[in-house]
């Protein structure tokens, strides 16, 4: 329902002779200039007192033509646009996009590359969940928790920075491989970070989980049943909070997730508290995954051996003519990676849920091999679009103050919502 619809629904309901101050319902714009709305979303709420009787969500404030930009750039150039999807856990987006392209190419990474991808994904996931839980707690007044958790996220982001030199816009994957091998001592640092994160989780668990003020504002608020959640296309921690054990990593295993020992936490009631608890437990599971990755980290190459996809070593580029030609063939305009015509959909489990890339490679009639150096269509399935689309269902008939924890537990990220 658009703003005009709601307005017209409110106004004619008044009898013409009734004075205006007896109007019972109030239309309230929550956002975009509202502290809890990130500046990029507007909730139009019809209030009866403080009760939200009807609401509408307006998105699109951060639309920047992500998909079109990807279609305008070559396969590898599009990676930096995926950084901007869920900017809190950018490495997962990079890896998801690259794996979609790799599926079209029909190539697979050697084990070390796969383990590094899992490692990066899980470090990013911990950072994302820490941010989400910390920010929700802060919006309920728990500023201490926010700072503790941001400290934890800082450790995670320092790891990512050490790997790829960037904290937010990581570009931590390439089609057919990873940009860098692990730096020295990285695995030991991972273990240290895991230890610190677990300590932070323990502290925050004490601060929040049995905190009556926190629990009373989260429990039985923003309830979404499993059926409705599936109907809306929910995925990720929010769906698991509603009691559906769907996790792309378990149900459609990619990389080496099926070789690792970890569990999928689920909630029971589908309220904000369950979503919070699921996120807390998922961080612990991610810690377990990282531990196993560190223990099992194999040696060997990180990139696949296909020279038509992966850039040669720098010593080859500068050292021999074949390497130099290989490099130019991959970099030059109109050449690049030759992805055969076809289409594919590849989902990964991002921090918010199923992040899928649907990619169409269309044959270029001008090229000899019938391949194209860029995607004809890139469609991103952002996880939090479905959650935000169903936001009215989770905030209607609750108090206006309940918008904040519900909205926080959905973990809307403008980058992937508006693309």
């Amino acid at each position: 329902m658009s703003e005009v619809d709601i307005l017209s629904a409110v106004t004619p309901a008044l009898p013409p002779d009734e004075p205006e101050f007896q109007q019972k319902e109030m239309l309230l714009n929550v956002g975009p200039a509202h502290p809890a709305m990130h500046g990029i979303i507007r909730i139009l709420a019809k209030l009866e007192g403080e009760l939200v009787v009807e609401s509408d969500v307006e998105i699109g404030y951060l639309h920047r033509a992500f998909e079109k930009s990807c279609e305008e750039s070559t396969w590898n150039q599009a990676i930096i646009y995926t950084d901007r999807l869920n900017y809190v856990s950018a490495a997962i987006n990079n890896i998801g996009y690259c794996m979609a392209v790799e599926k079209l190419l029909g190539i697979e990474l050697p084990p070390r590359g796969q383990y590094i991808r899992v490692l990066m994904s899980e470090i990013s996931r911990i950072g994302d969940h820490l941010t989400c839980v910390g920010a929700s707690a802060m919006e309920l007044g728990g500023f201490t928790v926010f700072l503790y958790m941001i400290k934890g996220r800082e450790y995670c982001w320092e790891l990512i920075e050490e790997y790829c030199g960037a904290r937010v816009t990581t570009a931590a994957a390439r089609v057919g491989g990873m940009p860098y091998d692990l730096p020295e001592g990285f695995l030991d640092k991972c273990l240290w970070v895991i230890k610190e994160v677990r300590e932070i989780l323990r502290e925050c668990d004490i601060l929040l989980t049995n905190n009556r003020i926190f629990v009373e504002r989260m429990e039985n608020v923003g309830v979404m049943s499993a059926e409705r959640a599936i109907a809306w296309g929910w995925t990720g921690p929010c769906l698991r909070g509603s009691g559906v054990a769907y996790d792309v990593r378990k149900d459609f295993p990619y990389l080496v997730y099926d070789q690792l020992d970890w569990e999928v936490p689920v909630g029971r009631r589908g309220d904000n508290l369950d979503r919070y608890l699921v996120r807390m437990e998922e961080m612990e599971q991610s810690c377990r995954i990282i531990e196993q990755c560190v223990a099992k980290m194999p040696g060997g190459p990180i990139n696949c051996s296909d020279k038509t996809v992966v850039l040669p070593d720098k010593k080859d580029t500068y050292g021999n003519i074949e390497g130099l030609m290989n490099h130019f063939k991959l970099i030059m305009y109109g050449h690049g990676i030759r992805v055969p015509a076809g289409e594919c959909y590849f989902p990964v489990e991002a921090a918010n849920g199923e992040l899928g890339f649907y990619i169409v490679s269309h044959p270029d009639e001008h090229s000899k091999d019938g391949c194209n150096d860029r995607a004809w269509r890139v469609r991103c399935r952002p996880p939090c679009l479905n959650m935000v689309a169903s936001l009215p269902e989770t905030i209607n008939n609750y108090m206006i103050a309940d918008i904040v924890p519900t909205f926080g537990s959905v973990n809307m990220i403008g980058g992937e919502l508006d693309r």
Partner: protein
Amino acid sequence: MFIDFGIIIGKIAFVLVNILNGAGILTWVERKQSALMSDRIGANRASILGIRLLGLVNSLADALKLIFKEDFVPPRGVRVLHFLAPIFAMGPVFLTMAVIPFGPPIELWGRDIKLQILDLDIGMLYVLAFGSIAVYGAMIAGWASNSKYALLGGMRASAQMISYEVVLGLSLIGPILVFGTLEPGLMVNAQNTYLWGWIPQWGVIVQPIAFLLFLPAAMAETKRAPFDMPEGESEIIGFATEYSGMRWGMFFLGEFAEIVVLAGIMTTVFFGGYHVPFLFDAVEKAGQAGFHFPWGSYFALGEVDRCDLANACVRCEARDTDVAPDADSLDVPAFSIRSIDARVMEGNAAGGPGEYRDYGPCHTVVGEVK
């Protein structure tokens, strides 16, 4: 008459300065304490010529900033009410402090001065009456801003403050009944007695449940977390949404001042006011000023109390004394007197003839007399 007027002005100034200072320091305490809890350093940047005072200067900087910020009035707001609301929020809080006694009557320049601005026999009613006025500040602010958020905040603030006002008022009924008076000064004096000779008869002892009700109600009244719904900074931003500059500051100054004032009320009603338990002056304990603990020990404060040899001329009729202090020589070395009849002549230091006051027999006076 001018002196009386001056004394009143002086008392008002004293109370005002103390409330404002208290409020300023409380903002600092809140910032530093929450910083400590959440692994931060807290306010520490503002400095005057490099002097930071652990961040205390920040309060000054805040005040300066607020004063010089634009005083914005929403275009469709009600100007007059918008102007009045912060005054309603802050004024009554300061007025409430008028009836809180902050010390026993003192004698200065031949006048008995009560350390209390307004000695009302219905003091506690006055407190409740002025406490309720502060609600208007939030309500009017919400209304005058012509903002839905401010309106919601104002409604919340008034709903919360009125409901906790009831608790606040009713929790004071118990102590009022026990002490049998509405007058804060008399209430304080009524708490200067001892149950079974050793428990101070404080409001918190004789009316513990009233205190347990009063404390959270006072926290709600001052809108501290977890009762910070009217502010609701994460969802409705609160009744002060459309306020800026010092007008906004006045709401929060009022809030912090209210902490000081409610602490004053709490001390008056539940914690014996200005009386320190087991501390007696010479009149009550036969010349032995200091702490007389119920288990018998005695901690002397100062010298032989009002036998202040530097100021008063003392004539002691020593009985079983080791050393009889010479009345005329004021630089007697250390002395110990087992039992004396201390007869003190209060007068000027010149030692002119004055009135003797009998303080009865003193026991075990051990002290050093300059």
